[in-house]
């Protein structure tokens, strides 16, 4: 991390920095007992980086993921996303950031079971206020880009696990977000399908997409160019590796 200047409170991040956390802290009150899930995480991620966040369970990686995904707000510290400080936005403003800047990919896919693949991909566009016709066209393009152009009218239960995850990836990308945030994206897939999904990620990265992926599997993390390891709520290591 030598090429990046250290960030100090009161600074503004450099333009090429997509994600910047500064002394990020998150504490939970569990029945009177304070649990410190994150104890000051400072991290900078540049455009078109491919970062894997690793760590054993309880290390705080889910908490970090929720904070980066704007699903949660920190107890202390700063979080800058794309040059905008989001650590103290309200609920609806965060919803807007999630809609515009972040594409989520979940371990369990989280597709609406009764909706077609096309409608599932349309969802973020609905909340972005895109008109119906434009929405359908964009969703169709996103599905084609993950190789599911012929599966648009299928419901999730008519698709294989890999196909479902690709629908979810299409949904994550349809709003052209700044970051693709993947939480154990291969956790529910067999190894062949996992490799297939990792190839999709590699292609996206090659096209310029910034990707942050939370995983506890080493053979998945090796696909990333940079591995951040958390332990007990702090960064234990931050390494670049050859792709």
């Amino acid at each position, binding site marked *: 991390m030598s090429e990046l200047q250290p960030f100090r409170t009161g600074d503004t991040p450099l333009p090429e920095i997509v994600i910047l956390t500064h002394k990020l802290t998150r504490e939970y009150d569990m029945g009177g007992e304070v649990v410190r899930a994150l104890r000051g995480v400072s991290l900078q991620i540049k455009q078109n980086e491919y970062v894997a966040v690793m760590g054993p369970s309880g290390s705080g990686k889910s908490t970090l993921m*929720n904070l980066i*995904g704007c*699903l*949660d707000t920190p107890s202390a510290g700063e979080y800058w996303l794309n040059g905008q400080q989001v650590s103290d936005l309200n*609920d*609806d403003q965060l*919803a*807007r950031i*999630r*809609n*515009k800047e972040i594409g*989520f990919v*979940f371990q369990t896919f*989280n597709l*609406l079971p*009764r909706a077609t693949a096309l409608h599932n991909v349309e*969802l*973020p566009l*609905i*909340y*972005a*206020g895109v008109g119906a016709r434009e929405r359908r066209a964009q969703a169709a393009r996103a599905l084609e880009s993950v190789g599911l152009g012929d599966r648009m009218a299928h419901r999730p239960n008519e698709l294989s696990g890999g196909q479902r995850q690709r629908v979810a990836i299409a*949904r994550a990308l349809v*709003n052209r977000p700044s970051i693709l945030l993947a939480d154990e994206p291969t956790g529910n897939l067999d190894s062949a399908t996992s490799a297939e999904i990792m190839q999709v990620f590699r292609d996206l990265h090659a096209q310029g997409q910034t990707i942050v992926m939370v995983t506890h599997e080493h053979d998945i993390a090796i696909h990333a160019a940079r591995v951040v390891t958390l332990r007990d709520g702090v960064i234990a290591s931050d390494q670049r590796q050859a792709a």
Partner: protein
Amino acid sequence: MRVFEAIRLALQTLRTQKLKSGFSLLGVFIGVASLIGAWSIVNGVNRYMTEKFAQTLFGVNTFQLRRRPMFTPNVPDSVWRAWARRPRIRFSDAEAVGAALTMPVITAWQSSENVSVFFGGKEARDIELTTASERYFDIKNLRLALGRAFTAQENRSGAPVAVLGAAVAKRLFVNRAPLEHSVRIGGIGYRVIGVVEEQGSILGFPLDRFVVVPALSPAQNLVNPPGILDAFLVKAQTEPDMRLAMDAAEGVMRSRRHLRPRQDDNFALDTSEGVQRFWAGISRILVVVLPGVVLISLVIGGIVIMNIMLMSVAERTREIGLRKSLGARRRDVLGQFLAESVAIATVGAAFGIVAGIGLTFLINAVSPLPASVSPVSVVLGVVMGAGVGVVAGVYPASRAARLDPIAALRQE
């Protein structure tokens, strides 16, 4: 998210969960159906009372001089006994009142009693025998299907001629032509000279079971003591003329009865307003009771919908979490669930309206009650249905909107 999107999503959910939605809209369905059904009856009877009963049967701008009023709801016994002690209306009263009316009017005598009418071996029982003067048919708007009414000449001479109601003609003559045949009333033969057009029925009472004979014909002994009549009918051309005629009639009767200024009338001047007042009394009761019934079913309907919506929010927690993670704001989620609850209630109301209209036709077909759908009740049904949806949906929807996306996504 636009309103249209929310509605589309709501209808989609309704379609995919038909059974559950079906149960949840039952309450509103029953509420609206009963609203429209009951309202239709009140509305129908109202119209019947004002249009057909009051105007056609009683006669427009018509009043009756009688011993006591005809339609009297809730009369105490003491009043009733006082009425029974009043002197009756005499032929001479009718003649004196008739002579005193200077405005253009038509008048008729009328007395009635239930009798049996015979022809050949057949008997028509429980027939209203009316002894009347010749203008009775004009005042009552009775048009003849066959033959003619009796003349003033026949009335004065007390000729034994009869005009039959349609039901009597049918009962006694079946398929034969009744004219010129002789029917027996009180042992005396009456030549049939006319048959009145069919009048139908009102509130279940048949209107065609009558026979009209001249007031001075022998049958007068069957209906009243000599020289007495039930009613003197006066029909004016205009409403003000009718009022003037009523004043004149009151004056004549008071002087004939030697009433002092402080004494009340001991006779009645009945108009169709009396009938309408009688009905208004009944419909007021319905207007008080009806909203109670409707309100109860709508409240139950609302509670059912609220329950179903709370279940739906609980079941779809994960979906809500997902939608929030994809950028749904609180108001988007609120709108989605509110639209769903309103859609359930409105669809229930729509079915209720259809059922209410069906009920109205059914009532018309199988019961004597006239019913007609009031447009106001349909509008009210839609508005109340949607209103119940909003009220019942607010709490579940706001719970959904406040869900924490992380916790919601984690839920299995």
